[in-house]
């Protein structure tokens, strides 16, 4: 029997207007974040370019000298960069081991009841405003450090800011690591137990390496958070750029400096104004470089399990 209305089979997707609209909107939303990032980089770069265009400023001065006071013609970026790196390093030294330990406990050792109680409490630490952390650093951590290490510790110092930043980042790293550890398939653990491994050996030598990519992602986010943190360092780390590697001394970070100087009043196109953008651009670069390095290291040690 011939079908009079026979049409060749059309395998193309049927276009539905509603679907197309939603698809476009979601595409725009996804593209928006990339667009905003590019716009920010463009704005920073434009003003930073004005800064470097100033005849007083040379790349040699910017990268070669160690004093930052644009008001009197000193443009060495290093005091701010070293302070940022030192406080972030201290923060990571505190938060990474403690965060991983907390994550291991929550995923491997804790009973489901303990886990359901402890995890929300850990999340509370993440919810505390950073300005509160800043005053905690200034009014509690610094006297504590002065009690332990004596008079060497200045009122504003990098160590207490770094330690409190570590406390702030800890729930972030713990939470993300715990998710990564829980995502490791049971059969890896069971295989290890079957071979006679203890819980400790399984956790550290089987589960942890398997979850390394997730933990690496947590570390990268933690580093970015530490480098970009403003309030804690603005309140507790110091208010004058200082090129020093001694964590007991006061030294202003890049973010703290931007916060302090933009709190006053700057006329557009003054050297102080454009210098802020140069610092912000430098901050962006530092974060980017640290992220890339971390990612490269993580990828090298990553395991793929099937």
């Amino acid at each position, binding site marked *: 029997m011939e079908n009079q209305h026979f049409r060749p089979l059309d395998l193309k997707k049927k276009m539905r207007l509603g679907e197309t609209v939603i698809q476009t909107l979601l595409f725009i939303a996804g593209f928006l974040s990339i667009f905003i990032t590019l716009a920010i980089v463009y704005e920073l770069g434009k003003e930073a370019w004005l800064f470097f265009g100033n005849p007083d400023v040379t790349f040699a001065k910017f990268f070669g000298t160690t*004093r930052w*006071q644009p*008001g*009197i013609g*000193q443009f060495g970026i290093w005091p701010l960069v070293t302070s940022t790196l030192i406080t972030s390093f201290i923060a990571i030294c505190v938060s990474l081991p403690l965060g991983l330990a907390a994550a291991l406990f929550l995923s491997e050792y804790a009973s489901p009841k303990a886990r359901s109680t402890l995890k929300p409490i850990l999340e509370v630490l993440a919810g505390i405003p950073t300005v509160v952390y800043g005053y905690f650093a*200034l009014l509690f951590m*610094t006297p504590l450090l*002065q009690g332990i290490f004596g*008079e060497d510790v*200045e*009122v*504003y110092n990098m160590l207490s800011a770094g330690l409190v930043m570590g406390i702030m980042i800890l729930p972030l790293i713990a939470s993300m690591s715990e998710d990564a550890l829980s995502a490791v398939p049971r059969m890896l653990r069971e295989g290890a137990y079957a071979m006679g491994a203890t819980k400790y050996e399984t956790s550290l030598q089987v589960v942890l390496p398997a979850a390394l990519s997730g933990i690496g992602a947590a570390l990268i986010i933690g580093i970015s958070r530490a480098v970009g943190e403003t309030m804690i360092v603005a309140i507790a780390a*110091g*208010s*004058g750029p*200082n*090129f*020093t590697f001694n964590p007991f*001394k*006061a030294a202003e970070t890049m973010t703290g400096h931007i916060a*302090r100087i933009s*709190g*006053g*009043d700057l*006329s557009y196109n003054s050297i102080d104004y454009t210098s802020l953008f140069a610092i912000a651009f430098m901050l962006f670069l530092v974060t980017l470089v640290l992220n890339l390095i971390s990612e490269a290291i993580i990828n090298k040690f990553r395991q793929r399990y099937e």
Partner: protein
Amino acid sequence: MSKTVRSLLFVVVAMSLLLAACGTPATVAPTVAPAPVEPTKAPEPTAAPTEDPMAMYAPDAVTGDIITAGSSTVFPLSERMAELFQQEGYTGNITVDSIGSGAGFERFCKTGETDVANASRAIKDSEVEACAALGREPVEFRLGTDALTVVVSAENDFVTALTKEQIGKIFTGQFTKWIEVDASFPDEAILVYGPGADSGTFDYFNEVVVAPLYLKADGKADTAAGKEALLGLAGAQFSEDDNVLVQGVEGSPYAIGYFGFAYFSENSGKLKAVAVDGVEPNQSTVDDGTYPISRPLFIYSDANILKEKPQVAAFIYFYLTNVDNEISDVGYFPAPDADLQASMDAWMTATGN
């Protein structure tokens, strides 16, 4: 059954919280009323006659907002006067920003954002020119006197008096350890705290204490060289917010800083004032002029602003008539009567009274 009871309970609790939140303003107001007992005896006008034109400048007769910004030294005084002005019945908003005299003039003269500039130094010629470009002619009102106080921590048991020259050398890094200042002092590094370049306190300190150490070829003090030396001191902590400096100096027996007298008297338990050239800062030494680093405190406005915004004129009138009652409490010293009278006359001229 329990589900409906529970949801009903939730609604009741939510409603009661909402009603309690809406209900509080009514209960707060009566507690504010007893406060303005003190200020009501304050407005005994020094020179202003009790005639009708002044009635339009009463706090409860004017409306609109007042925006002021500038010196951190003048800040506590302006804040106190703003508070009293509002207690007298003013209904608008008064904002007082503590950003440094230089920044205050910037907002007043370059961007025109503020109605009044607070300053702990006189306006510079370049700032007057910038104002002229905006069509503003600054009118100066002298309010009081500040004794710029050099402070150390109360834990510091070796410093009681320093000469102006020693102070200048400490803040520019020519002395880096206490033992260099005086052989009897301990061999410890000096921790320096001071305001940044936006601050009028900084400018005044530079002009009077530091610049005389750097003389130009013609024998005059070189303020540019002084500024460079002050800002270039490695490890010095700068902040326009004097509270940050207070915190820093309190924290170590080897720290030294400088700011307005009000911040010292507020924290006199934890700080110690250094006698400059043998003279300690207090009421009598400021009055008879023996304290070497006392300076006038000003607010600046413009005649057009005073005419177009009567609330600003009213505020300044209130300020000038009541400043002597409050200034000692805030921590500064009254201006000479002649200067206050001159300020009042300037107000009368500017408002066309």
